[in-house]
């Protein structure tokens, strides 16, 4: 009983000392928290990543990282490059080099494929609408 009374008087004493700007500070904290949460969980589409697939393995790399990769296929190594937030095939052992001429990909669901060497590249998570007909199912490939 004595402890409850002490606790009650303590809470009352604290309440009497709380000022308007204290509530303002708490509100600022909540607003910052809310904005941060929205940015992280809500609006954030996810960093753009590049999926690379061959016959047996899958690789994932963020488009923000400048990289040069050699992906093995049945014909040899396909050289893939990530630069300036875009990915492209720089060289490939295929005959027609269609994959090289497909150019750079940087937007969500854009893709490049080297069919003879069984290499497939796809961007996921980048901002930007898909153009009609651009969607492709990697399992079909």
């Amino acid at each position: 009983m004595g402890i409850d009374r002490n606790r009650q008087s303590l809470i009352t004493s604290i309440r009497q000392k709380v000022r308007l700007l204290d509530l303002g500070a708490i509100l600022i904290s909540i607003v910052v928290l809310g904005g941060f949460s929205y940015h992280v969980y809500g609006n954030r589409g996810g960093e753009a990543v590049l999926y690379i697939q061959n016959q047996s393995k899958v690789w994932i790399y963020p488009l923000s990282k400048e990289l040069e990769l050699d992906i093995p296929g049945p014909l040899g190594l396909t050289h893939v490059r990530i630069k300036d937030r875009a990915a492209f095939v720089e060289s490939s052992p295929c005959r027609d080099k269609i994959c090289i001429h497909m150019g750079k990909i940087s937007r969500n669901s854009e893709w490049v494929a080297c069919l003879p060497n069984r290499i497939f590249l796809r961007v996921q998570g980048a901002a930007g609408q898909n153009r009609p007909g651009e969607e492709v199912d990697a399992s079909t490939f």
Partner: protein
Amino acid sequence: MQVPSDISHDSGSFKRISSAQVPIGRSPFSKEEEKIALYGAFCLFLSTIEFLIPKPLPFFRLGLANLPILLALRKESPRFILALVGLKIFGQALVNGTLFSYIFVFSTAGSLASGITMTILSFLPARHLSLLGISVMGALASNLIQILLARYFLLGEGAWLIGPPFLALGTITGILLGAIALSLSETPLLSPSPQSGKEPDPETMEQDESSETMHQTESMGAAIPNSRFLQAFQSFLLQNLSPGILFLAGVLSLPPFLFTESLIDKGLLTGFYFLCAGLSGKRIKTFPNLIAFLGITAANLITPLGQVIFYLGTFPVTLGALRLGAFKAFTLLGMIALSRFTLRSYVPVPGRLGAVLSRMFFYFERITERKFQLRRTRIWEDLKTLIQEVSQEGMGHRPQAAGPSRTTLPGCLFVFLFLTVSWIALAL
């Protein structure tokens, strides 16, 4: 609540004063320095108390160590507050043995951000903004800067994901701490000392009997008993290595540890430093370190990198991200272990800073040593009484250098071997 006498995180670091008869004289410190040292000791004491409180989450912190800073706001000058913040940062780093680690960087950035924010806000009149609001804003500043550092140094993109719960907890603890400070703010921590000009008792005081380290027999966790080898090793370290040379060994071991790019070498060095720290008597807790390792590794998996090893549901776990996460985790834990092995709390820091640091540790040791009954219903009064008594006890106590002041030849050889192991990782 009974306060045990060995509640420091690492009480093996503290060395008892030697048994020389100490003539009482006037304290060599100014009144402000004495006050800062006392407040700083109070910060460390509360930090240790917080360590004992069970937490809902591994990294959850109430921030009790900030309470003395809050209580000093509007009573002391901004210079005093910022000096106290600095003392708290260094004190905690030396007590916890984290001076050479990212934790020190995080602690410094967070404490400075909150200290500066709270100092600036304390200029606003108390009738508009109380300690509660100041505490909330201080917590916000501290947490924001730590999230930023975690993003770029430790957790990568994963830092953004844990940001919101971290900020939410910080807001709650800021409110709680502010409320505690508000309820205590009217009764000062330190009464104006009536004996500030008084000559202390002319009788000499006999200091502690033993010059041996307290709790010298601490072993790795609770698993390894105090074997003769352990005791011999710990005795060897104390008698043949000065704090300064150990500190230097720590500093010189940092570059190879930080610059090695091999995950295996980093892991092996981390294990080596933990082994040294454990053998030297420092308490090594396996579970928190394991949680830290897994947490940092998992946070780095958020950004996929490299070959997909397996899927957790639809979430790809990639080899590159796993390696990067483990690498960062080893870096953090290795630096902590290195710090804990090579730092003693009585590192001879030069100048007034070193003197005030030593004074703070003296008060801290006195506060934690006393078997003082802190009653839950009268905890604040009991704490104040304790601090007043310690403050009186400190009057006229002359600081003494503790620990060996020179390194012997076997000690030098040990340091050479230690550094060789550290640098060999870089060479391989």
